[in-house]
């Protein structure tokens, strides 16, 4: 098997007496879509925060493209090629869709903080930004401020921003949460089209989507991975059924 893009080893995090991440280990191979499921309060978002660098684990290590990134700041992880989206969509509301994506393109440009070069008319930023906007189907909304987009469109915008970072891995924190059925189907199709090109860690509640998209599923309960494997085998696992899926079956 190829070396994993992202590998967690014994990651632990406690808030006071509460163990929110309790020795989590798993890895994501190049091009793999790895889904992380679990009931509310299982510690999924906390785990994503630790991988993206917004929280520091108490113990354990996180390796990305072969290097230990456990102590790295979030901006350095992003520059190393680790992109993420948020459970509660996070965009720059007053900037247009185009400017949001161009902000992301700019981060990988040779002079990301040039002081005197006009940014809005810069073809080197707008060109790749348009490509990403078209790829996620927001072409007609490119000049709308991000704050006025529908929920599903904001999700698509976040994905476009992640794509322009030319990432090696993308962390998707509940991209379908709060999105209507129709937009949800469009987002699933979008994620499917990206499959195989990026290593993705998908945190999701929507079981239908998870089993339609994932190569591997890990189940997180009370901060522990209780099962991990192919979707079919995880679905059949009795401990998983009892802990989580049971209420549905």
């Amino acid at each position, binding site marked *: 098997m190829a070396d994993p893009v992202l590998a967690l080893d014994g990651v632990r995090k406690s808030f006071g007496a509460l163990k929110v991440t309790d020795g989590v280990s798993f890895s994501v191979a190049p091009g793999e879509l790895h889904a992380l499921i679990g009931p509310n309060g299982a510690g999924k978002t906390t785990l994503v925060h630790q991988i*993206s660098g*917004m929280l520091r684990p108490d113990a354990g290590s996180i390796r990305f493209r072969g290097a230990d990134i456990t102590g790295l*700041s*979030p*901006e*350095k992880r*992003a*520059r190393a090629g680790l*992109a*993420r989206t948020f459970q509660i969509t*996070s*965009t*720059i*509301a*007053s*900037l247009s869709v185009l*400017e949001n994506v*161009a*902000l*992301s393109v*700019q*981060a*990988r*440009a040779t*002079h*990301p*903080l*040039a*002081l*005197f*070069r*006009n*940014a*809005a008319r*810069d073809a080197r*930023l707008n060109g790749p930004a348009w490509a990403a906007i078209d790829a996620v189907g927001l072409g007609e909304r490119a000049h709308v401020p991000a704050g006025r987009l529908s929920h599903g469109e904001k999700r698509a915008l976040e994905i476009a*921003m992640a794509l322009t*970072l030319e990432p090696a891995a993308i962390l998707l924190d509940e991209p379908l949460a709060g999105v209507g059925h129709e937009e949800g189907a469009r987002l699933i199709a979008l994620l499917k089209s990206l499959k195989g090109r990026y290593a993705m860690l998908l945190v999701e509640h929507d079981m239908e989507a998870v089993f339609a998209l994932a190569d591997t599923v890990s189940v997180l309960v009370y901060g522990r991975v209780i099962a991990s494997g192919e979707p079919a085998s995880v679905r059949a696992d009795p401990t998983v059924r009892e802990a989580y899926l049971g209420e549905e079956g």
Partner: protein
Amino acid sequence: MSAAPTTAGAAGSTQSRPGSRPLLALVLFAALALVPAAVSLGVPAHWLSLVTRAMIFAIAALSLDLILGVGGLVSFGHAAFIGIGAYVTGIMITEGRTETLLILPVLLVVCAIFAAVTGAVSLRTRGVAFIMITLAFGQMVFFLAQALSAYGGDDGLTLYARSTIAGLDIAASRTGFFYIVLGALIGCYGLVCIIVASRFGRVLRAARENATRVTVTGYDVGRVRLIAYVISGMIAGLSGFFLANQTEFVSPAFMSWQRSGELIFMVVLGGVGSLHGAIIGALAFLFAEDVLAGITEHWKAIFGPLIVLFVLFTRGGIVGILARIRGRSDG
């Protein structure tokens, strides 16, 4: 985190569209350029020095708007930079160094160093803590100036000469000095506009709204804000240079915390984050002060409530009101 520090976050929606900026600014600068002519045609003569003084404060307010309006950082110690600029000018003139081309580089470097050091500390905090720590640094410089007995201490320092350019007194003619200050104001405004529209400016604007998003996109938000803080401090220092030359006197009062508060009010009065609003705000502030002081010596008792009413009943300052009037006539 949507924790846009204090008031500045709410101002985003009232920012004027970049497209309307050039026209309004052009009208404003053209009107200012006509002031000396108006004075010779019978407008009160003290308007020349009043508008000069207002333009000097407009430079400082403009620099504050870069970090407060655009960057979302409410600095309550910005007068310190005016003071440092004025004192560097005053001390160098006292020591016989009147050449502007010598004073300005020294002044800009001193302001940049002060901004870099105090900014590195204060930018570790957000919101009210940032306000308090910038206030503390401002007061530190204020008391330092008071203790500077070799250069007047508490009483301030009277200048025996003004700065020179190639041996010529820059304020020999009051009209000449007026146009030098106007030129500097236009230059600073152009510079700040370019910075705001640049790649750097885009990151600074985005970080005001959503620092978390900017961080996970790969930018070091703290570094971006520090650069903006240093640029802002240097521009404010320049206004101190002009202030010292206009008043031919520098004193610790130049950097009192009240002065920092007045700068914030000028920015709010004009319209936060709009840049030309800061200039309009400074002009309106100094004119209001002048008019009210002519009515009664207790003018501050009128000015205070006026400020409160203005903040309560206007959104987006004067620029916001202008935009709404224009919007109404368009629709």
